[in-house]
Every structure is written in structure tokens, then in C-alpha cells.
């Protein structure tokens, strides 16, 4: 049985300086309730890994607006002008990573790989300060794994064991992030008895805590 967590008990799992993987793609599939609670906790100096910087009032944008983010690692920050402003003024450290490389680095972190070789970013500033490896006369960038202290993910249906299914394009980064953190907390849109074992997107062994959005079956 997966452990249920009350929103107001989330704070125990947060601390200054921690790193957090945040699911979602332009806030589609982002666990907003959990983010609201992190805003309330006011923990500082966070390193956030997310596809993007959300919007000013939505997704990880709320953490950025509350000046809780020391470093943001993302593929895109174009829809959050405040994030761009903090990047320009160097008040927030922003590392931009190609989206596929970001997904694959997180997957490597969750899969025990020491890294992966990709041609994405070769001959661009993305290769700066990275090892270039030659395989069959082709040059590849060695991209290293990403892991974090915590992953917060958004499941559409989570069963009593913690097995998780996402819905439509809310899936995005959630499954890889669920594998790459020391602790995983999921926001559940619906709790159900049991999911079809052929259709589980994230096996229960990855999900440590579930926060119910509403009661349902």
C-alpha cells in the first residue's frame, strides 16, 4: 500500500538547498497543489529541474516568483518573462538544455547509467565544457546523468499500491522523473483500487507518497 500524505505534512520532506525534479510541460501535468505547498513552506536555494519555467503565476513559475529558486535547469523559459529577467540579472542561475537531452539525462540518472552519447548540440555552445567522444568516426557529446533529492509528479490515476497512469500529454517528463529521485511524491487526480497491469506507466516501487487531489474511485 502506498503511503498517503496530507498536503500540510509535505513540509517535513522539504529543506533549503534541495534539488527537485518537477513534472509537466508548460504546466500540463505539473502537480500544482504540491508546488503551492512548497511556496507556503518558503524553503530557499532550490535547484529545480523542469522542462520549462512555467508561467509567472503557474507551475515552477510560482517558486521562481517567490525567489525560492537558486538554479533552474530547463529546456525553455520563454513563457515566463520574470524567469528571463532573473536570468539576465544573474539573480537566478539558469542552465538551458536541449529537451531530448534533458529527458535522456534524467532517464540515465534513474537507470544507473554513467551517461549517454548524443549528437544533439554538437558544434554548438551546448558542447562547451563537455567531453566529446568518438564512436565509429562520429563525434558525440557525453551527457551525464541527472538525479535529485525529490521528484514531484502528477498522476491521473494512482492505485492503492502506488501504480500510476498519466493521461494524454500530461505524461511528458513525469515517468522519467519518478525514477531519478531519492524520494517521489505524486499528486493524484484520482485514486483507484487497481490499474491494469499491462497499462501501468510508473510502477508502484517508484512512488513513495501520494497526495490525493480529491476522493474518487
Amino acid at each position, binding site marked *: 500500500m502506498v503511503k498517503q500524505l496530507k498536503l500540510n505534512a509535505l513540509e517535513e520532506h522539504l529543506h533549503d538547498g534541495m534539488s527537485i525534479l518537477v513534472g509537466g510541460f*508548460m504546466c500540463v501535468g505539473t502537480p500544482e497543489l504540491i508546488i503551492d505547498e512548497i511556496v507556503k513552506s518558503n524553503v530557499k536555494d532550490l535547484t529545480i529541474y523542469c522542462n520549462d519555467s512555467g508561467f509567472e503565476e503557474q507551475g515552477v513559475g510560482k517558486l521562481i516568483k517567490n525567489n525560492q529558486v537558486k538554479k533552474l535547469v530547463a529546456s525553455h*523559459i520563454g513563457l515566463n*518573462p520574470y524567469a528571463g529577467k532573473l536570468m539576465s540579472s544573474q539573480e537566478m542561475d539558469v542552465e538551458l538544455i536541449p*529537451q*531530448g537531452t534533458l529527458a*535522456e539525462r534524467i532517464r540515465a540518472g534513474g537507470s544507473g547509467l554513467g551517461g549517454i552519447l548524443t549528437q544533439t548540440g554538437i558544434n554548438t555552445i551546448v558542447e562547451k565544457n563537455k567531453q566529446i567522444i568518438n564512436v565509429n568516426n562520429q563525434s558525440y557529446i557525453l551527457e551525464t546523468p541527472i538525479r535529485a533529492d525529490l521528484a514531484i509528479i502528477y498522476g491521473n490515476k494512482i492505485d492503492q499500491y502506488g501504480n500510476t497512469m498519466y493521461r494524454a500529454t500530461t505524461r*511528458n517528463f513525469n*515517468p522519467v522523473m519518478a525514477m531519478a529521485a531519492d524520494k517521489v511524491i505524486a499528486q493524484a487526480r484520482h485514486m483507484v483500487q487497481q490499474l491494469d497491469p499491462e497499462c501501468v506507466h510508473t510502477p508502484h516501487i517508484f512512488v513513495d507518497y501520494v497526495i490525493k487531489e480529491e476522493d474518487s474511485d
Partner: protein
Amino acid sequence: MTRQEKKEFIAKRVAREFTDGDVVNLGIGLPTLVANYIPEDITIYLQSENGLIGLGPKPDETTLDKDITNAGGQPVTLKTGGMYFDSATSFAIIRGGHVDKTVLGSLQVDETGSLANWIIPGKLVPGMGGAMDLVMGAKEVIIAMTHMNRGKTKILKRCTLPLTAKNQVNKIITEMGVFEIKDQKLYLLEYNKDFTIEEIKAATEADLIIHNPKEMVVY
């Protein structure tokens, strides 16, 4: 042509690049318009890097489902036969060469097939999103863009802005013509008869190889 007319014209011409069964990824902006002009006698499969294949038209009020979005975060629909997957799978599809064609906008393209579409030094940097993976991974890279930006050509000998990728562009389609890049040389395949060849050359910094170009046909 107004700027909007140019965009529609370019989108219509790009739509004729596809063949039945193609898996295609359309970038944000002008490339998104291409979906409106796919010939009715072919079926193509639109991939969206946030996690679906089978991108359908924009929903109306009755079909709106906020969980189904495109890579711009906008609501879309899923066609019958389409399916969802996660970001790692999505970029395995892209990087693995399983996308036949990607259509992207650009700030600059050069005659070696390099492109620059993600950074203007001194301005806010939005990030490359999935563009770098798409141009490295897709079998064919088509740049769809207006030929000039504020009177300046965007087709150069060498890009001056930081690159998105080197030597990856196969075709450029603008309101002036259709250009192909082969072995780091730029060829004019088709020209828009609203322009003279001299006008097209003048609007193109790159060396342009012209050898029996056809008239650009847009339906």
C-alpha cells in the same frame, strides 16, 4: 504580400513536401500553419514532442480537453489511431531517425546547412526547447521562414548567431522560392514568379546555384 500572406503562402508550399505515411514534426509559429494545408489524398502523422503522434485540429468548445496539448502548450486533439508517450520515448523517436520531416522556423540559415534559431545575443534567451534534437534527428529538415527580416536577408554564407546545429538543413522554403542544400551548396529549385531571379539573388547573401529552376506552385 503582407507578412501574414507570406506566411500562408509558405505554409501552403511546405505542405506539398510530404508523402503518404510521413511522420512529421511541425515547429511553433509559421510551421504550425502547415497542418492546415496537407493535401487530402495523403495521410501524414504529426508528432508533437511533448508526447503524442496523431495531432489533430484545434478543439472547439465541445471537444476541448485540457490534458491534450501540443509542444506550444496549446489545446489540440488526437486523431483516431494516435497515441501518447513520455518525453524520453518522444525524443527516442526524434533522435532515432523515426521522424521523416521536421519543419522549423529560423533566424538564419547558411549555405552549409547550418541554422541559428534560438539565441540573439543581448536579448532574452528563451531556450532551445526540442529544436536541437529535431534538427539533428529528423531525416529531413525543412526551414519555413520569410526570406528577409526587417530588410535583412536570413540566408547567409555563414550564420553569425550561435548555431542550433551545423550542416543539418536540407531545404529552405520562403515566399521567394524553394532552396535545397546539398554538399554544403545552396540550389534554387523553385522560384516565385512574383520575383525576378535577380531579386531573389539580391535577397540572398549565400551563393545561389541556379540551374533550370521551376516555377513555385502553390494551391
